């Protein structure tokens, strides 16, 4: 029975399956539109953001890690000293996600009933920073110090053999907060996964206040007033940042192969590498005439695809579904938002192309290190 559960979890943890489940569930858990909200409530998913929902979630995650710590394979990974912060971050990210959504839903209820939000106090009701805030900070600081001291005494900092440039470990992993980028390296070349995407992430984050012109929902938790912006942010935060970190930390073993949490990290695991470029599909498999020598002709289909993806889709959307957005924000803001949104979608799209068609590159010009 236990084996069956472990095998099921191993199976479900594969990125192709876990990501699909997350992507399908996402709009129902965080409904971006009123239509999804109807389903959200029909499926009773709003109960996640209640006290009972949070408690059930907590029990499930704890059971998962309990199973992990008692398993001979998973416990090896969980007990690595540098992986302990990841367990901590999973708990804290989910807890604070719940805490913010719980308060948002409480506030939404209050506002729907015409009451002020929970954060609202009449302007006259001010408190003095001494003692009301200074003491809270002091206590928080002491508790944090105690926590760090216990952690430091209980768990020695990792120290492996002295550096040896001739002996590379397998797998060689980046620090945990960059493992999301390393995970993207599976699907994209370093210039995209390691340089372009991180730059877009930083710039995109910085641009949020200039894109989100919704004046509502400033200074209090709320979801109903800011559905779309919260949906997009949580997609970036949970799906593009936290999820790849978890996959990269727990599920990537020797040769960066996927290993289910309860699977043994065996160097001998063989995964067939039969990835094919789009140009190979077209010139060799479909037309059977061999690759043209000029790289621009060879990759013309991929180039057209990418140009259409970033060039045509924004125009089509501007005439259709997103016309209101264009009119509200103007062409520059609209263009940048849609470009960043399309870039955010590029990762799952490439993942699915890899999983279904074994597609290696959409555009492959290794002569100029230009592969997408």
């Amino acid at each position, binding site marked *: 029975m236990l084996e069956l559960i472990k095998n099921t979890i191993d199976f479900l943890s594969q990125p192709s399956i876990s990501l699909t489940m997350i992507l399908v569930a996402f709009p129902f858990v965080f409904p971006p539109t009123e239509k999804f909200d109807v389903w959200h409530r029909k499926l009773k998913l709003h109960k996640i953001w209640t006290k009972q929902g949070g408690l059930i979630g907590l029990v499930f995650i704890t059971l998962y890690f309990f199973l992990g710590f008692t398993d001979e394979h998973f416990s090896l990974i969980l007990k690595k000293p540098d992986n302990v*912060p990841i367990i901590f*971050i999973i708990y*804290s*990210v989910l807890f604070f*996600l719940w*805490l*913010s959504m719980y*308060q948002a839903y409480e506030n939404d209820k209050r506002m729907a009933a015409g009451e002020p939000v929970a*954060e609202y*106090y009449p302007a006259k009701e*001010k*408190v*003095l*920073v*001494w*003692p*009301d*805030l200074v003491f*809270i900070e002091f206590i*928080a*600081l002491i508790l*944090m110090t105690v926590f*760090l001291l216990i*952690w*430091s005494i209980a768990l*020695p*900092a990792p*120290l*492996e053999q002295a*550096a040896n440039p001739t*002996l590379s*470990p397998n797998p*060689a*992993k*980046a*620090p945990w*907060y*960059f493992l999301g*980028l390393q995970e993207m390296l599976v699907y994209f*070349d*370093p*210039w995209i*996964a*390691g*340089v372009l995407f991180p730059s877009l992430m*930083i710039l995109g*984050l*910085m641009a*949020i*206040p200039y894109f989100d012109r919704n004046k*509502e*929902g*400033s*200074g*209090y*938790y709320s979801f109903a007033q800011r559905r779309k912006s*919260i949906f997009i*942010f949580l997609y970036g935060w949970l799906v593009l940042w936290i999820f790849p970190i978890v996959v990269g930390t727990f599920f990537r073993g020797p040769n960066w192969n996927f290993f289910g949490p309860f699977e043994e990290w065996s160097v001998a695991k063989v995964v067939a590498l039969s990835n094919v470029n789009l140009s190979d599909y077209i010139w060799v498999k479909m037309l059977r005439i061999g690759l043209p020598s000029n790289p621009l002709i060879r990759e013309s289909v991929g180039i057209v695809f990418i140009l259409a993806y970033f060039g045509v889709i924004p125009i089509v959307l501007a005439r259709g579904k997103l016309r209101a957005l264009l009119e509200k924000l103007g062409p520059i803001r609209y263009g940048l938002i849609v470009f960043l949104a399309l870039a955010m979608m590029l990762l799952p799209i490439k993942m699915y192309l890899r999983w279904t068609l074994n597609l290696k590159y959409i555009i492959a010009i290794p002569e*100029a*290190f230009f592969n997408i």
Partner: protein
Amino acid sequence: MADNERKSLGSRITGSMVWTSIFRTPFPTTRSERLKSILNNVFLHLHPAKLSRHAVKLKYTWCMGGLSFYLFIVLTISGILLMFYYRPTVEYAYTDIVDLSEQVPMGIMREIHRWTAHMMVITVLLHMFRVFMTGSYKPPREFNWVVGVLLLTLTLFLSFTGYLLPWDQLAIWAITVGTNMARATPFLGHEGPGAALLAIGDINLVTMSSDVRFALLGGRFVGESALLRFYVLHCVALPFIIMIMMSVHFWRIRRDGNISGPL
């Protein structure tokens, strides 16, 4: 004379000329003294003297910003202590780290530094998450959000540069993986798209010994000069920048109308 003898030691100290010269206000008990205690103290005056009631609630702020700042201070102090013993050379770095735990009774300074660093990355990320979920980036605080994103980036770089310093297998290979991406930087990395365009005749300007990765490592691989560069970045350059940015961040919180809240 008799009056003086009945005074306790504590009140003699707090009543002394030296004490009152340092702390202008006595231990605050009245409303005006409490207000003054914030205004007259350089550290406490990061805060306003009065706040809306919601702003001091833990469930609103999660205290994450304040804790991030506190963890930065813990990291600075423990980092300075570590700098007394640590020499950033290939010859000594690893053995110095070993000595920190082997030769010092109860030597946990490196543990404190490392776990605090992990913790700070987490608190900074969660602080960003809180600020987003309360919509606190909206005007008039939009620029402070930008500063905050820069602070997050700097926090990650600080943690990343520190990762190399123990000079063990974990360190050099994590940094190798991380910095290998830099060689693919468009135009500036020798394996990046467009780098071949930057050439004079047949001579490439962006090569393995002149690209952005070389600048970061001070060499073609993670070695002696990379260790020194990361040490200087970690202990001097990045803390210097992050402290300036933090000053801007805190200043702007006050200038932009203190902590966010419903109108």
